């Protein structure tokens, strides 16, 4: 089903735009151009953070962290290899992307760890960043229970990511 979803998602907006007599192709072109700007903006952090994350991996620190947190993580069914991703995800989006890409490259995109990392990245957000942007812009000082509730949601995201991958991809190891 997902094989046809993505191609259809390309077709539907194009037809909708044509119905409104809008120049779909020009809009796509301008949009793709702004994607290039987005790419330029994520390139420097990606270079820096992949340097740091590759160092963490090669120095054995990532394994060590995994081993350290593995009693807690395995208790919840979360692969211990993803320890750093779980810790860094709420704090920095680009660092999480770097850690996730590192995990996918090191363990294989279609390994249990690689797929779990991808699902975790896709189903959680940079919580601290989001909260600071929203509350900063709206001028809110008393945040009450927002942070614990949002972090709890993140934790559930990591948990269900690990579980759904085991359910939907039973043959991975």
């Amino acid at each position: 089903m997902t094989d046809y979803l993505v191609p259809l998602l390309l077709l539907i907006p194009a037809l909708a735009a044509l119905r409104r007599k809008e120049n779909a192709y020009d809009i796509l072109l301008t949009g793709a151009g702004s994607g290039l700007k987005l790419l330029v903006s994520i390139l420097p952090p990606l270079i820096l953070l992949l340097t740091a994350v590759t160092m963490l991996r090669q120095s054995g620190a990532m394994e060590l962290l995994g081993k350290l947190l593995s009693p807690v993580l395995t208790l919840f069914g979360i692969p211990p290899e993803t320890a750093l991703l779980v810790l860094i995800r709420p704090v920095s989006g680009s660092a999480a992307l770097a850690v996730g890409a590192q995990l996918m490259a090191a363990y294989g995109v279609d390994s249990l760890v690689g797929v779990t990392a991808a699902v975790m990245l896709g189903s959680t957000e940079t919580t601290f960043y989001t909260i600071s942007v929203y509350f900063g812009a709206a001028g809110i000082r008393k945040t009450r229970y927002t942070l614990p509730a949002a972090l709890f949601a993140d934790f559930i995201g990591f948990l269900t990511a690990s579980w759904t991958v085991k359910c939907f991809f039973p043959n991975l190891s």
Partner: protein
Amino acid sequence: MVMSWIWSLFLLVSILSAAFTGRGAQLSQAVLQGAQSGVTLAVSMAGSVCLWTGVGALMEESGITDALSRILRPILGRLFPSSRADPALARDLSANVCANFLGLGNAATPMGISAARRLKRGDTATDELCRLIVLNTASIQLIPANVAAVRSALGCARPFAILPAVWVSSICSAGLGLAAAWLLGRLCRR
């Protein structure tokens, strides 16, 4: 400032750990290897990132986001009761949730902030504002384009195969996050 701490911490920990495990050679090799892999990753993500920002722009211009946010409005009215009496708030909220859903993060933020300004009371977050933040941090997304781009950049044959798993986990985390917010809200009032 946070990133400076993360950067320094990562370096410090890797140097200590390399010294501890005797992997100095791998560590110095990792420096250039990592920097290069950042470029390789970004370049091989370029195609799908540009394609999806293009499609995102088209979804906005072609009225798909508007149609979707009209569908969402009644559901959001239950989650945010004060939006029923405030059409501008209802519009901001549904546009924010809908832009997030379609992966248009840049479009979602300004509308979310404008909704947050309407939902606050003085400098205090209301229950509804907490709910808005939880919805925004749970990342309910139809196509997680960046992750799929990384997967295909690393040579995955079916980068979108993770979609059902991503949907289930985002819905669970949003639902249970909202439940936690509701519970904490009741505890706070007592």
